[in-house]
């Protein structure tokens, strides 16, 4: 690394640390923060114009009908005089370099440094959201950076991050920004991953599959009741999205946050795992992760370890090949095992890879092919 590189790395880390500050103290800073640059609005994609200056958004299953001067449910896409605009194009409010394991994606370029970004807004309202201070905010409430796609790609190159992750809030709500970054990244042989709730209509999802490298879907539960009461969303469109990802043959993994007493019923978990094996295939990695009290669910304790272990066992019993326990650093359930010979292939401690014995996606012991994107 040259001195120039070292300097810019330091500058970058400073700005990334600034991002952390923005995330943590947005409301306190709102009065004085200079940040958001003059408005340069980009017209939204995926909408139709209706009479009397109304529009219908065709991005997510809500299909909001939006009056002039109003935003949709996500709060970041606004109708202005009958034209629909994204308010967050090129305006991430948080930016970090994370290991890919933090997303988590366990079968996608292990240990990769991932430039991760998010904006304001979300198209659901999870009572347990851990990033609610940005996901449930609107653009005017958060200081944001000025990073159009070309600048972001240049930054990624400068910092030698092979992967860009769209994460923290729900990336679907900034789909235009995400798509344009992913398209440029793909042309330059860089990878992009979307960390999403899967609450998106078919057309924009299929479009994204053409430019993204991988997707992680947060499947919040396997019941409409939970989605209705805890997420203000629906399960069916998320399952449809998973089927589309499978059809499009893009690499994807599933995360299921296990919340005590809310979505940890054994029958529900069995039904979920059977559905995945039947509809998506046994090779899809499933992560059962630990819940910590957040946002509006501070009255529920963290998930007991035995519940996570039980969920993992249900997944294995259902025939899934790769079932992980998440948010439990050092637990054996974080490791990748060969489904044929059961040897440890990738050993993890939290977000760090302690050992990777997987050569070219093949088990070194029994030559079993391990699905994923390994190089």
């Amino acid at each position, binding site marked *: 690394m040259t001195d120039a590189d070292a300097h810019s790395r330091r500058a970058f880390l400073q700005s990334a640390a600034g991002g952390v500050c923005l995330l943590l103290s947005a*409301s306190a*800073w709102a*009065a004085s923060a200079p940040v958001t640059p003059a408005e340069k609005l980009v017209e939204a994609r995926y909408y139709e114009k209706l009479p009397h*200056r109304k529009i219908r958004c065709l991005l997510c299953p809500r299909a909001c009908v939006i*009056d002039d*001067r*109003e935003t*949709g449910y996500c709060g970041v896409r606004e109708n202005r005089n009958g034209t629909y605009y994204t308010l967050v194009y090129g305006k991430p409010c948080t930016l970090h370099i994370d290991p890919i394991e933090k997303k988590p994606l366990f079968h996608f370029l292990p240990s990769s440094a991932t430039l991760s970004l998010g904006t304001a807004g979300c198209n659901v309202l999870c009572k347990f959201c851990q990033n609610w201070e940005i996901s*449930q*905010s609107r653009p005017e409430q958060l200081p944001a950076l000025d990073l159009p796609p070309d600048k972001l790609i240049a930054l990624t190159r400068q910092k030698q991050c092979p992967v860009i992750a769209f994460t923290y809030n729900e990336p679907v709500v900034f789909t235009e920004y995400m798509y344009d970054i992913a398209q440029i990244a793909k042309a330059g042989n860089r990878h992009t991953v979307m960390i999403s709730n899967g609450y998106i209509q078919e057309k924009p999802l299929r479009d994204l599959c053409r430019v993204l490298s991988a997707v992680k879907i947060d499947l919040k539960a396997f019941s409409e009741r939970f989605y209705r009461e805890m997420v203000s969303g629906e399960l069916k469109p998320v399952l449809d999205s998973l089927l589309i990802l499978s059809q499009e043959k893009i690499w994807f993994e599933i995360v299921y946050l296990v919340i005590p007493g809310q979505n940890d019923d054994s029958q529900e978990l069995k039904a979920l795992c059977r559905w995945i094996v039947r509809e998506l295939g046994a090779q899809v990695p499933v992560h059962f992760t630990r819940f910590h009290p957040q946002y509006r669910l501070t009255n529920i304790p963290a998930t007991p370890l035995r519940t996570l272990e039980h969920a993992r066992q249900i997944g294995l019993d259902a025939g899934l090949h790769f079932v992980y326990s998440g948010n439990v650093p050092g637990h054996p359930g974080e490791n990748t095992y060969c489904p044929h010979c059961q040897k440890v292939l990738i050993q993890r401690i939290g977000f760090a890879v302690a050992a990777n014995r997987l050569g070219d996606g093949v088990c070194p012991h029994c030559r079993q092919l391990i699905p994923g994107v390994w190089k």
Partner: protein
Amino acid sequence: MTISRRKFIRNAAMAASAVSLAPWSANITRGAARSRVVFSHTAVPEGREEAVRCLHALDRGMEALLQRPVREAWASLFSSSDVVGLKVSCLAGRKFSTHVALVQAICTRLEDIGLKKGQIIIWDRLDSDLDNAGFVLNRNPQKILCMGNDAVGYSRELYEYGSACSRLSRLVTERCTAIINLPVLKDHGIVGISAGLKNFFGAIDNPNKYHVACGDPYVADVNMFAPLRDKVRLTICDAMLAQYEGGPPYMRQWNWPYQKLLLTQDMVALDRLSWNIIAKKRRQSGLPSLEETGRTPGYIHTAALHGLGNDDMKQIEVVET
């Protein structure tokens, strides 16, 4: 659950003293007695002469509402130590927002009872909305203050009631000791009508999350957040212009000069009457009812069930001046 006689009496006494300490706080006794809504006639203020008429309409309305001379009426609601927030409605731009002339008239009367200019804050969601509606932004406390929530931010604390959970404008939580609600009367494409209760969606950080299910119970729940429930002392609905279809944006073809100010201390009663006004106008114009368009403003009844006011027409007294 049982409660001792002594404890019951003590609690009852505490509740009674709370009421007596806050004579202006209609919220505490709302729902218990008849609610008064005053319809004060006035022309749409376009020039200086009309602005004076607007002030006269305001004075007539306040006298009728509180049944005492103008100055005493204002002094019965606000003290010279209050910081009074004037929550206007500016989303629809200059053609269909709370009229500047009405706000000026209110400021005049507040100054008459001893408030300094810096103790009056005109506010709405965004600086740009206020600017577009013709208000002059100002942060200099030597003048009447005027600013959007975006200028000061939102509380760190989350306020939660029923299905609603939001951060409130810091103007509500930290700056104002009292609030005058100054909505406009309009049809609303999702929640049916927008008048008194709905105007406080402009005080929270996440109104986009509550424009579902016709806003029921969200509109009612937001108005139960303690700082709003405790600080709103007066509502003056600017119905000099009103709109019976196509809201919340301004739609010339459905906008009409209703030429009234509606004054009350009961937002639920105001909203109930506003629904009637819009329903009648829609009938006259051959439009389907709000119920038929799937936009029944059920949140009004929910607000009544919360104890925020009366939606029973038998309990609402209408006074015309």
